[in-house]
């Protein structure tokens, strides 16, 4: 173990993302009191179905988002302990075992439910009551998971943890493998037929929700919500494009801070205003020549799902070396990233297509196309792969992508191990030494070229 002085913080984070943080906090507070407000509550995973839930008059809890939030706030411990006691292996997707641990805790202490959650011995009463009180029990589950087979199985297990007493609906999302010669990003028969298939299932979901709620679905509200989301997504896209400038006015880490708003906040004017403010701040920085990383020297691409325990830490670590992480699969290729597909007057097809566009739902060939495209457009010097220990979906093609970036663009890359919601997998010394080595190799390359 080494003891070193805290490095100088060379980050210059967007100030507007704090507003987003408040919007997200307000959302969770509202969810935690949904039962008292007389709302029905849906637990869901995968693609952003929240506009449909909004139009159905429901409160919604995105399982991955909850796990990410707990990890980001260092509050994941009790849920993960409860999950471990229930029997979940520590190598299981940490999103799922954190969320399932919450389910176990949510059941704990319920006199009507004779289950292992009520006998958890490793989670203290204070934590148990705290978490159990915060996350309301679901009235139903909806699964909408693309890319990772574990996602669909996870909600099925939630259904079983609740003794099959909570109704569940599954949206099946075909993996965009690319069998045919015409297959590609946003094109080809596979894309078109999968889009129609998922849109048809969304109509079935809406009928099912009408049955569950006993209310007609508000199609006008869905259109209204998707109008706002489309506007917000366009502003986000425009803001991302501005970050192609050098030095970058905002980084991947700033955009990570804006994942929650675009991923699950209600579609409304506040959401549009937020992304307008983000874009305006970036535009203002460009005009004033303000960089997101003081003395930007390197531009990097980040592949991997976010290590939520380490968001601030990682942003400072890269900046300390003058490295601006300017793009990444989890940002450029996720979260309503193709707003032109959305027709607010008839939004289901465009929504279905975005669910299919999950960044883990493509074969390696398409991911190769997207990664190299972004590396070129953002003019990066190298790639950093977050080998996300319990996320097999994100890590699957990473070695292929690294090789392709080296072979086709001459870009070096490094891998470091961490995880989405389990800090124990993060190895700081490995990232530090590999990052320094890669940056030095970039220096050597530049020196030779000059």
């Amino acid at each position, binding site marked *: 173990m080494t003891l070193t002085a805290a490095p100088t913080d060379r980050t210059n984070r967007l100030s507007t993302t704090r507003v987003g943080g408040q919007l997200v906090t307000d959302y969770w507070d509202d969810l935690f009191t949904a039962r008292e407000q007389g709302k029905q509550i849906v637990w869901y995973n995968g693609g952003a179905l929240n506009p449909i839930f909004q139009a159905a008059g429901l409160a919604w809890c995105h399982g991955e988002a909850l796990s990410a939030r707990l990890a980001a706030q260092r509050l994941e411990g009790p849920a993960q302990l409860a999950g471990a006691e229930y029997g979940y292996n520590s190598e299981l997707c940490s999103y799922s075992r954190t969320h399932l641990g919450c389910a176990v805790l949510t059941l704990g202490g319920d006199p009507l439910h004779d289950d292992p959650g009520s006998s958890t011995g490793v989670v203290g009463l204070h934590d148990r009551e705290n978490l159990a009180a915060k996350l309301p029990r679901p009235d139903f589950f909806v699964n909408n998971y693309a890319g990772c087979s574990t996602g669909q199985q996870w909600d099925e297990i939630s259904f079983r943890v609740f003794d099959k007493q909570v109704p569940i609906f599954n949206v099946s999302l075909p993996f965009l493998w690319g069998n045919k010669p015409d297959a590609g990003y946003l094109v080809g028969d596979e894309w078109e037929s999968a889009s129609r298939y998922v849109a048809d299932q969304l109509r079935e979901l809406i009928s099912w929700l009408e049955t569950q709620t006993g209310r007609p679905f508000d199609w006008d509200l869905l259109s209204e919500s998707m109008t706002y989301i489309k506007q917000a997504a366009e502003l986000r896209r425009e803001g991302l494009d501005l970050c192609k400038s050098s030095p970058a006015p905002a980084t991947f880490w700033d955009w990570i801070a804006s994942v929650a708003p675009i991923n699950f906040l209600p579609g409304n004017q506040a959401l549009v205003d937020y992304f307008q403010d983000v874009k305006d701040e970036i535009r203002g920085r460009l005009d004033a020549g303000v960089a997101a990383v003081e003395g930007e020297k390197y531009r990097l691409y980040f592949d991997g799902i976010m290590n939520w325990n380490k968001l601030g830490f990682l942003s400072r670590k890269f900046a300390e070396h003058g490295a601006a992480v300017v793009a990444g699969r989890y940002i450029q290729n996720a979260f309503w990233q193709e707003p032109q597909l959305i027709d607010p007057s008839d939004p289901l097809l465009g929504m279905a297509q975005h669910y299919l566009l999950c960044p883990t739902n493509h074969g390696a060939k398409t991911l190769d196309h997207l990664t190299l495209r972004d590396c070129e457009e953002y003019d990066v010097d190298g790639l950093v792969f977050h080998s996300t220990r319990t996320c097999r979906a994100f890590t*699957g093609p*990473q070695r292929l992508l690294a090789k392709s970036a080296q072979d086709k663009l001459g870009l070096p890359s490094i891998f470091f191990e961490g995880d989405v919601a389990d800090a124990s997998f993060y190895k700081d010394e490995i990232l530090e030494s590999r990052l320094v080595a890669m940056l030095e190799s970039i220096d050597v390359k530049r020196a030779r070229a000059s």
Partner: protein
Amino acid sequence: MDSVRALEQLRVAARNPRSYLEGWRARHRGRRVLGVMPMNFPRELARAAGVLPSIVQDDQRPIGEGRALIAEFYCGFTRNLADQAATGRLDIYDGIFTADHCIQLLGSTDIARTLEPEKPMFFGMLISSLSDAWAPRKIAEMMGQFREELERFSGEPVTDERLRDSIAAYNQDRRLLRRLFDERAAGSTAYSPVELQDLVASAQVMDPGEHYELLEVVVRGRERTSLDDRVRVHLSGHLCHAPRRELLEVIEEAGAVVVDDDLWTGRRYLQTDVDEDIDPMEALGRWYAERNANLPCPTRVQHEVGWDEWLLEAVSRSGAEAVIHLMPKFCEPHMLYYPELRRALDSADVPQLLIETEHEGIPLESFRTRAEALIERALRKRPAYA
């Protein structure tokens, strides 16, 4: 041919598929060999297209070059597949087809596709959410796609007549295998777990007609033997590839006798036949759906059936006194479902042991000790007069 030689031929096919496949090629000049990824691809269709569909096995060789292509926290089987791809060991197959959306399996298949871009590698994703009203229609659509792709791959039409013949051949082979498993559950100890694994793995590799001929010889030459007083154990897990043989041996050496299982190289493979009395395409669709009802798999979503419930019934049927879970390290569907299995067995007071298996470096003596402890627990539950 005598039963010893027949068994040896099956054992070789199971443990060294390449030798069988090369021999088959030599006997069938001009015909193609299709590698099939587990677990649900309808091989009947491929055989009807005139090709030999052979399920790709974990060849149990140490993972070398494949480590550079796939993360170390993928399961051993998929890392082995990546290694087979990296070292050219998949060259024995003219194409690879898969129907199962396991993200780890897709990851290794994509590596194979990237390394051999000219080789046909078709993925047709069979719907895994089987409780949906539209599931039968989607299954039928995918079966139709498989048929078209296989016709393109082989250059031969899949006629209904050839499909019926193919279905009958696989059914015949599965039925005979199933008889052995049913007899074991009813008290026969004619075959060791390793022998049964070889019999099933060879069925996954070979043409069903050739396999059946040899299996019949083996069965004719084997006498039924009865249970002794060893502790009766059910083996559960290993959903898509074989556990290492030495692990099966250690379990019986520790004082257990395996009476039933739900392993991929066991009952899970052979539990369901294809209906021969209805339209063959419809029958294949039903076969896929019924497989999960007959022996539930945690990779499928079907609310009305459960692996835990099936396991309790199986234990009751065979009289198993304990259950050993064989969980391949990093197998997410198994990790997710395991607590439900544990809960069910605990509620029925059935002793159980979880063994996490690795591709290499299995600590056998540690497993032996744990198996012995389980057996002691099971013995203590026997009535004093037994």
